[in-house]
């Protein structure tokens, strides 16, 4: 075959520089029946990168449940799709953009959001919400991070600021509400922050589009932004390798986002799809033109032939290698019906976007790339996309020293007043209000947002034209997964689903973003394998099949890995949008009830903590936010989990919401019962008149240490408030679902937050004092 002139001769060494191992390179030679040229080598290297090929994770991902009666499209397409009734479907997916966000926080975050939005509208669904799950290094010097230097803290703040601005810039301009997610802080994320973006879109079921090329002779059309030299090898060398001291030199591998062009692309693509002339469509994300051509051909069982000379280019003199590997943003590739291309091109012209026929669907299953008519690459598409290397990487359980009581949190004396410790907890970046961040996001555009960030346990958007609403929540506790990846992963699913249920929605499906260290380390692969088993168990039990997501390996710098951090997004459906639950207490005199799925149907009078000995209690408590923040201890195990109990609680919450018998709902998670109750007080403020602050008067009986009783984080629990005349109905419903419901106090009008344990007040403080600490800590920390 003809090749481009003055070409580099490919050797095994050059292949190694491209991240291809010797056996992988041999496989390339075998597939081609010859040595590849440099363009072909580049194509193989990105397609077979960890990021694109899932070569280390594939064998494990098979264990995840992906089927369900509502699943329309599982993993393998641009996004997962589920049936949400009324002839509508929801497309949703979460993806990481971790390494780019460390190297260049603003652009890394913008392009993370841009990429996931394209995945959604590629399917023909209009994006209606974005959530972001973020992990940073510590931004304050405190107990929990004693060894973190002031320089690192300052740097972490800059990364956070850049990431938040990036997310805001892209979503706000594009016109999609950014309505939730979480922000967590741990020292392990200082050199490797996590930026996981989740997007949700809706479409009519019959209007879905897929990335499957078909129809020999059908034109292949390139649309959107011009191709430049940005982001070359983003997927292979940036996303699929760990960081070293030279990582800042990878800045040119980061792409640059343009939300305005993305907005035009969205409108133009959705309009073009209505012409009926579009056969298939795929966005150009990781690995750009290479990935989109290869995957469309492979999925359709066809070939594709393109000529790079026709590709709109931002700069002159780009080589075929650069054009094929560019990760310039805001581009799409689509296949149109032969003869109807003018209809499609006309739409893009209207929106002022480039749209050019660059090739056609061909017989023979080859990806054939030409440059001015001269063939520069010719590779069988299916082997390139599907027959890449698959590894059963070695697995080894990391050795962990045997812990004893000396390593664990030591509970303080009983009856000790815990108000000051509680304030310290409320001020910690993990617990404090995230309003300073979320106010920078447009949370209301599209006028569907029924629960803005902080209003409820999940973000809720209504679906205009129906009675329904969708609820979404993300969760993932890296600290717990570090201590026990299987249990931590189960908790991530359980909590995200619990959040969704506490907004009144029935959890129906999941998406996951699996952030781990290097797969070449057996210990990391053990964490990964354990986490997969945990996810599988929890998703099976809670009937939330995983419909897609991504795996992000190599999250490590100078040899040290991040905490294993599987982030789970759960989608739920609320049949009647007017029954959405929020966390705010509403009226004084309302009764506060603690629901507990684990205590079974017996209305036991106490907040029982995990069963077992005191040693077991201390061990579990050592993994809590309180232990970390107040005690400076991260050890032990996450709380034991009881998945059937989680399910009972969730079903009970959905039933309570539908019956409209409760005034508010908020689950127990980070910071335990005390934080849950306080947040329900804080959230009530905006709807109250000045000087009329709601408080809470709580009385609990518990035989466990007081810190465990009020700050323990065992799951399957939620706090609801109930008007007195609905109490019986609530108790009945709880009994029906096998959930214990214990009356623990009431909402008061005196603005005092008071928790009494076994007859002694252990926390007592005006709500306004606590609120000020909670509401402004993050802003104070970041403005230092």
């Amino acid at each position, binding site marked *: 075959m003809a090749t481009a002139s003055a070409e580099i001769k490919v050797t095994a060494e050059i292949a190694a520089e491209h991240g291809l191992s010797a056996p992988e390179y041999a496989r390339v030679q075998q597939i081609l029946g010859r040595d590849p040229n440099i363009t072909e080598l580049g194509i193989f290297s990105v397609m077979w990168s960890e990021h694109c090929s899932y070569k280390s994770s594939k064998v494990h991902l098979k264990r995840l449940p992906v089927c369900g009666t509502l699943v329309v499209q599982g993993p393998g397409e641009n996004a997962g799709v589920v049936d949400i009734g009324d002839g509508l479907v929801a497309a949703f997916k979460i993806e990481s953009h971790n390494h780019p966000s460390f190297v260049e926080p603003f652009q890394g975050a913008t392009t993370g959001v841009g990429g996931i939005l394209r995945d959604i509208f590629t399917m023909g669904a209009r994006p209606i919400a974005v959530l972001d799950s973020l992990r940073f290094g510590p931004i304050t010097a405190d107990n929990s991070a004693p060894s973190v230097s002031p320089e690192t803290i300052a740097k972490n703040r800059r990364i956070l600021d850049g990431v938040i601005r990036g997310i*805001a*810039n892209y979503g*706000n*301009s*594009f*016109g999609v509400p950014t309505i939730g997610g979480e922000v967590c802080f741990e020292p392990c994320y200082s050199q490797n922050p996590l930026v996981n973006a989740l997007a949700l879109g809706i479409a009519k079921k019959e209007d879905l589009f897929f990335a499957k090329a078909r129809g020999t002779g059908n034109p292949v059309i390139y649309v959107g932004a011009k191709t430049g030299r940005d982001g070359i090898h983003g997927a292979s060398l940036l996303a699929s390798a760990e960081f070293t001291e030279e990582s800042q030199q990878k800045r040119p591998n980061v792409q640059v986002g*343009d*939300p*305005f*062009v993305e*907005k*035009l692309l969205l409108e133009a693509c959705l309009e073009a799809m209505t012409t009926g002339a579009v056969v298939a469509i795929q966005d150009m994300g990781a690995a750009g033109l290479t990935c989109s051509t290869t995957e469309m051909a492979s999925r359709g069982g066809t070939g594709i032939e393109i000529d790079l000379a026709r590709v709109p280019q931002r700069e002159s003199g780009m080589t075929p290698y650069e054009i094929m590997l560019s990760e310039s943003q805001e581009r799409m590739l689509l296949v149109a019906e032969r003869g109807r291309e003018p209809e499609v091109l006309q739409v893009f012209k209207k*929106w*002022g976007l480039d749209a050019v026929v660059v090739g056609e669907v061909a017989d023979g299953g080859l990806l054939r790339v030409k440059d001015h008519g001269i063939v520069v690459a010719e590779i069988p598409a299916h082997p390139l996309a599907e027959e890449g290397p698959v590894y059963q990487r070695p697995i080894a359980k990391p050795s962990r020293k045997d812990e004893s009581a000396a390593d664990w949190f030591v509970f303080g004396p009983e009856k000790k007043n815990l108000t000051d410790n509680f304030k310290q907890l409320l001020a910690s970046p993990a617990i404090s209000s995230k309003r300073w961040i979320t*106010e*920078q*996001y*447009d*949370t*209301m*555009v*599209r*006028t569907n*947002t*029924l629960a*803005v960030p902080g209003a409820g346990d999940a973000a809720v958007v*209504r679906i*205009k034209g129906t009675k329904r609403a969708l609820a979404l929540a993300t969760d993932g506790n890296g600290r717990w997964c570090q201590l026990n990846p299987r249990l931590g992963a189960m908790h991530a699913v359980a909590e995200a689903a619990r959040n969704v249920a506490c907004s009144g929605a029935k959890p129906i499906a999941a998406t996951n973003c699996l952030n781990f260290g290097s797969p070449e380390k057996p210990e990391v692969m053990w964490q990964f394998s354990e986490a997969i088993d945990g996810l599988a168990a929890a998703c099976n039990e809670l009937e939330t099949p995983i419909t897609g997501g991504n795996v992000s390996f190599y999250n490590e710098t100078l040899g040290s890995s991040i905490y294993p951090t599987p982030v789970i997004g759960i989608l739920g459906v609320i049949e009647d*949008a*007017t029954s959405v639950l929020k966390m705010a207490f509403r009226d004084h005199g309302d009764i506060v009830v603690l629901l507990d799925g684990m205590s079974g149907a017996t209305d036991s009078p106490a907040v029982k903590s995990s069963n077992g000995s005191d040693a077991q209690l201390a061990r579990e408590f050592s993994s809590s936010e309180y232990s970390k923040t107040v005690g400076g201890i991260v050890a032990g195990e996450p709380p034991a989990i009881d998945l059937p109990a989680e399910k009972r609680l969730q079903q009970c919450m959905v039933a309570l919401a539908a019956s409209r018998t409760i005034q508010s709902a908020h689950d127990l998670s980070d910071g335990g019962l005390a934080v849950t109750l306080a947040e329900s007080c804080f959230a009530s403020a*905006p709807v109250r008149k*000045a000087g009329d602050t709601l408080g809470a008067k709580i009385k609990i009986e518990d035989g466990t240490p007081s810190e465990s009783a009020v700050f323990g984080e065992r799951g399957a629990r939620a706090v609801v408030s109930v008007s007195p005349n609905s109490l019986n109905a609530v108790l009945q419903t709880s009994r029906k679902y096998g959930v214990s419901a214990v009356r623990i106090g009431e909402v008061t009008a005196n603005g005092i937050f008071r928790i009494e344990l076994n007859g002694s007040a252990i926390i007592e403080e005006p709500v306004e004092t606590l609120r000020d600490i909670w509401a402004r800590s993050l802003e104070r920390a970041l403005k230092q």
Partner: protein
Amino acid sequence: MKFGVVVFPGSNCDHDAFYAISDVLHQPVEFIWHQSEDLANCDAVILPGGFAHGDYLRTGALARFSMVMKSVKSFAKRGGLVLGICNGFQILLEAGLLPGAVMRNIGLRYICRHVYIRVENTATPFTQAATPGQILKIPIAHNDGNYTADPQTLAELQKNQQIVFRYTSADGKDDATGNPNGSMESIAGICNRERNVTGLMPHPERAVESALDSADGLVIFRSMVESLATSAKASA
């Protein structure tokens, strides 16, 4: 009576304004493309929020050159009702249909939250259904809402009662506390001398149903409907 919502490339509150008019107020409404040479016989025109042409330059600086703005200008000159919301307000300022300018918010950050604004003048087609001094809870969502004008312009706005909305506290007593972006005189919205062109930074179309936490923005659209109905009757 027919409303028109202009669609610039980069408008992103166009659907929201359309929905508020069609589904909440039940009035006829259609989209008007930015390259359109006429206004499709609309009786009132809304320039919606968003980032027209990306707003990489000054906000509204490119949109004012859009083909449709010629028609909007002559429509305004003939007394037609023009409402600019957020980016639409910024475009009206750049187009010279309203005086002054907006700068970056004083904190140099995008802000999205509910604010309170006080209706300062009820003698306009956009506020005639409101009570004098009425406090409205309406969201803002912008980077550049810091209203600025020279002293002479400000004095004229005052004298001619062109300041239609001011930011204020929930009880309407403390404008400075309620001012989210540093706007001079806590200005949230102004009208032209003739009262038929109004622009404001807050988004009334996002506050039209109690499910969205506030329906206070409805009074602005209801005023427009009332005003159009009266003038239709007068010309009949």
